[in-house]
């Protein structure tokens, strides 16, 4: 079996396992997995109660990773995230007490409730995968993955994430309410005795170790991408900078993110090469949080997704035969 097919098989198993406890969120799971295997971070936007924490815990169990959760609040301090030096009376010295960021899967719940200073503390961790306190830089464990959530409805007492920080997230995923049928299945699961706090009883198996996960991340990085598709990605991201409704377009980091994510998606489908469909399917999640709309466009009700859709509808697919 080729490496790509191995990756695809692993993906399928992970999705099946997570799908046993998290119903009706296949696309979210797929995107989160893409984020993990692309060594990126994911921002989930959705109202509370849609299973975001359950998703992280399930993934952590299946992927064999350690996970922690930080509930962001306005009084949360940076050291509450990164940890800090504490005086040890016995040793008569300061010792570093690692914060919750020292984990493999970090759920940053309602990240926009913390002030910018605290959010910035997470910034270095996300980008550099290290934490610096008192001049000492400490590497975070590998793999390191942040799954942040934010509530799109509440605006009082929130601190919107700055563009620079948003750019650190590989993907921004809109989590929607489940359908009526899915919601009924969720209830039926609970009727059968499912308890979200006891995932072990739900039969979730660990499919990977952290080392295997890293190896798969590296194998995904080797997926072939045609030069024409690099043009295609460049074209799409470049169009965000000239779009009439977009005030600030996506950065080159967006192009890199798109490249990384498309490779993982190709591997997810058992291919050892990227196709335009990968680019098109992931572009909204990659770009929607990286563009700033004109006020007029916002006033007209245009969303970033509308802009990305219009760009994708205009950008010609390379090597098309017609």
């Amino acid at each position: 079996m080729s490496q790509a097919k191995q990756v695809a098989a692993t993906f399928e198993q992970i999705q099946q396992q997570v799908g046993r406890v998290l119903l009706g969120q296949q696309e979210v799971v797929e995107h989160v997995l893409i984020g993990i295997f692309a060594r990126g971070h994911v921002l989930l936007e959705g109202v509370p109660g849609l299973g975001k924490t359950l998703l992280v815990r399930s993934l952590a169990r299946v992927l064999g990773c350690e996970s922690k959760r930080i509930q962001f609040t306005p009084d949360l301090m940076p050291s509450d995230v990164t940890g800090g030096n504490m005086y040890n009376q016995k040793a008569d010295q300061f010792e570093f007490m690692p914060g919750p960021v020292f984990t493999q899967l970090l759920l940053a719940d309602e990240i926009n409730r913390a002030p910018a200073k605290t959010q910035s503390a997470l910034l270095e961790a996300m980008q550099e995968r290290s934490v610096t306190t008192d001049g000492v830089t400490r590497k975070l464990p590998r793999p390191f993955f942040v799954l942040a959530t934010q509530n799109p409805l509440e605006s009082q007492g929130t601190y919107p994430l700055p563009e620079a920080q948003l750019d650190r997230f590989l993907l921004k995923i809109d989590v929607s309410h489940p359908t009526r049928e899915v919601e009924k299945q969720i209830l039926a699961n609970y009727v059968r005795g499912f308890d979200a706090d006891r995932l072990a009883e739900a039969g979730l198996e660990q499919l990977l170790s952290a080392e295997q996960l890293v190896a798969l991340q590296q194998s995904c990085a080797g997926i072939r991408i045609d030069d024409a598709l690099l043009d295609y990605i460049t074209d799409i991201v470049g169009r965000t900078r000239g779009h009439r409704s977009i005030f600030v377009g996506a950065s080159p980091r967006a192009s890199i993110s798109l490249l990384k994510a498309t490779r993982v998606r190709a591997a997810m489908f058992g291919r050892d090469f990227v196709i335009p469909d990968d680019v098109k399917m992931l572009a909204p999640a990659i770009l929607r949080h990286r563009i700033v709309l004109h006020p007029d466009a916002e006033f007209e009700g245009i969303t970033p997704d509308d802009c990305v859709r219009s760009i994708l509808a205009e950008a010609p697919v390379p090597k098309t035969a017609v």
Partner: protein
Amino acid sequence: MSTPLGLWIALTVWAIPLEPADVGGRARALLADEKFRFCAEEDFPLTSREARWCPVIGDESPRCPALVESCKRPRGELDFRSGGGQANMRRVVEESDDERETGVSNGEADAESGASASDGSTTGPTARDGQTTTGEHASESLETGSGQPDETGDFGGETSATGEDADTKGSDEADNKQKPDSKKRDKRRVERDEDDEPPDPPSAGEAGFGQVLFWLVIAAGALAILLLLWRARLGLASEDEEAEGPGEDDVVDEEEALPHTPARGPVLTDVEALLVRAEGAAAAGDYRRAIADCHAALLRNLEHAELITVIRSRTNGEYVRDLAGQRELQGRVAEVMRDVDRAQYGSDPQRPMFDRVLKRVRTLVGTGLQNMLLAVVATTIFACAWGSGGGKWKTYRWEFSPSGHGGLIELGETYGIELKERVLPVVDIDRQTSTLVLVNGADPEDEEWERLAEWVDEGGNLIVAGSVGSLPDWLGARRVYDSREVAPLSVAKPHWRDFGQPDLRVPGGDKLYLDDATPLLLHDDGEDVYAATKQIGSGSVITLADDMLLTNAALAVGDNAAFSLALLSSLGGDAEYIDASAWVGADTPFATVGRTELLPALLQGLALLVLLYLWRGVLFGAPRDPPRKSRRAFSQHVEAVGVHYGRAKVSRHAVRLYAAWAMARLRDGAGSSRRGLLPLAEMLAERCGRDETEIMRILVEADAATKESLTTDDPGRGDLEDLQLMQKLAVLVERAGGTR
């Protein structure tokens, strides 16, 4: 013949050099022409009526050598269904064994003993003869009391010589009674059609190898259709099996990539052209380009089927998802797309991948082609079956057949005698026509006979030859049956000076019974009359027992040609003739198409056009992405609303709404606790640096507008002033900083 007529004939005849020997020589040269196929082809299918010339011809005919051999061959039949009337008429070449025996025996019997047995199956003009001469034959039988059997083969299959038939058909009175007063011609035509109906196609078992081969071709065509249907039906299954076979792993990656071929020429939308180009590219080793062309062919085919819309910004995955309504097709297209994606963005494609893609694409796009092929095969077979009539037919030109008159016409031309077909109605005949010849099948109506009588009386010359319906009494002669097989003729003594004593021979069959006409030609017994003449007014009528003397076959015998030309020449030279072809035209355009056998071809063409339209649609132009629906700017929406207000003449309503909004903004912006317009005007004047009075006037107008009732009928001060007020308010709001 009266003296003036005889003198006139004599003068005219001797004025033209019609030497029998010379005419005979020219007739021989004429019949040597290939178009007189009965003189060149020894297997020419003579009809029974034409075969009556066989005993006359004998064992040798220098002018028409093949006719002797043709007489020994089976008789043929005419096919009126083939269309073309007498101009082109098909003859069946081979007959069934029974018919062949009958035909041969007839010929032999005719030649040897003159027995009157006949096959009775003859169709065509001879059948018409039979219809019209039957009564006269019976009449002769009654008059002579001979009770001879009728020659049914040539004169109608139903005819018999029994007394009962004679009672019902024999006399002229009875014959006249049989004539319908109205629509007689149509009725005759119906009768003729019934009689002319060709026999059923002989079965394969009866007709030998040719028929067997024909039905084998039909069966092969049917089998081919079934095979195509079977393959089309099972194509999916085989494709599925094939899909489970070689996988993507079979594709061999090569380090050395082929150079990417740039786009070649205009964008092709023709599926077949794309596939052809793909095969060409594959032959050149450019498999990536070849697969791209296959891909384009598939997309175009799906687009023609209106399943997808080809747009350059769409991916293969999107095309596949567009087919969500057709799961089966979607799966098959997805298989192709996987290979296409791999070829375009993955490893370099190799021959196995191209073959696989081409096969799958051909299977997918082949449905339309298969349908078209099926239609072509089916309609072709249908057309063949329709056109062939299930027998072995050949088409001959009637005018150059033994029964035609083309030879006499051409021969006459060499002597300056013009004999041409009359195309105008008989009732319109006038003195422009000097001579009119009615030959078999002319069948004038009663009113036409009346007009002919008047015309003859005015000086016209009428030759009535053969069966032309019931002869009117004023001709002075009636046609009756004659049993002799060979009829050597002699010129009646009063006309020796005019025509000499030529060697005239025609087949037996009919003779004339004279009332008040005088004999012109006599049979060898010197009593029976073959041709008679009668002077009527300033004109004359010459009645012949049949038209044999004027046919092409007659040119091969003795001095027949010389006498016929002399006869025409004696009547003034130029003449017009009417034969059965005057009535063989189709009643409707559809019948015309049917007779010409173009119906299957037209249907085939129509079917192909329909299929072509269904297959290709109307997409013949250069492909372009459909225009994208763009969102309108907010200002365009505002403008559209303003236009609606303007059209509805409700500018005052717009002023009220805008003034209410503007006043609220201005008050918000002022931030003063003082109420009323005056403090607001003071503040705005101070902020904007404008005259307070002017601002106050604007505010008063705006305030008044806001307080107007919705139901007021006040039209305001007009659209322009309303607009000006809104513009002034807008300026105030902008300068006061209250827009947002």
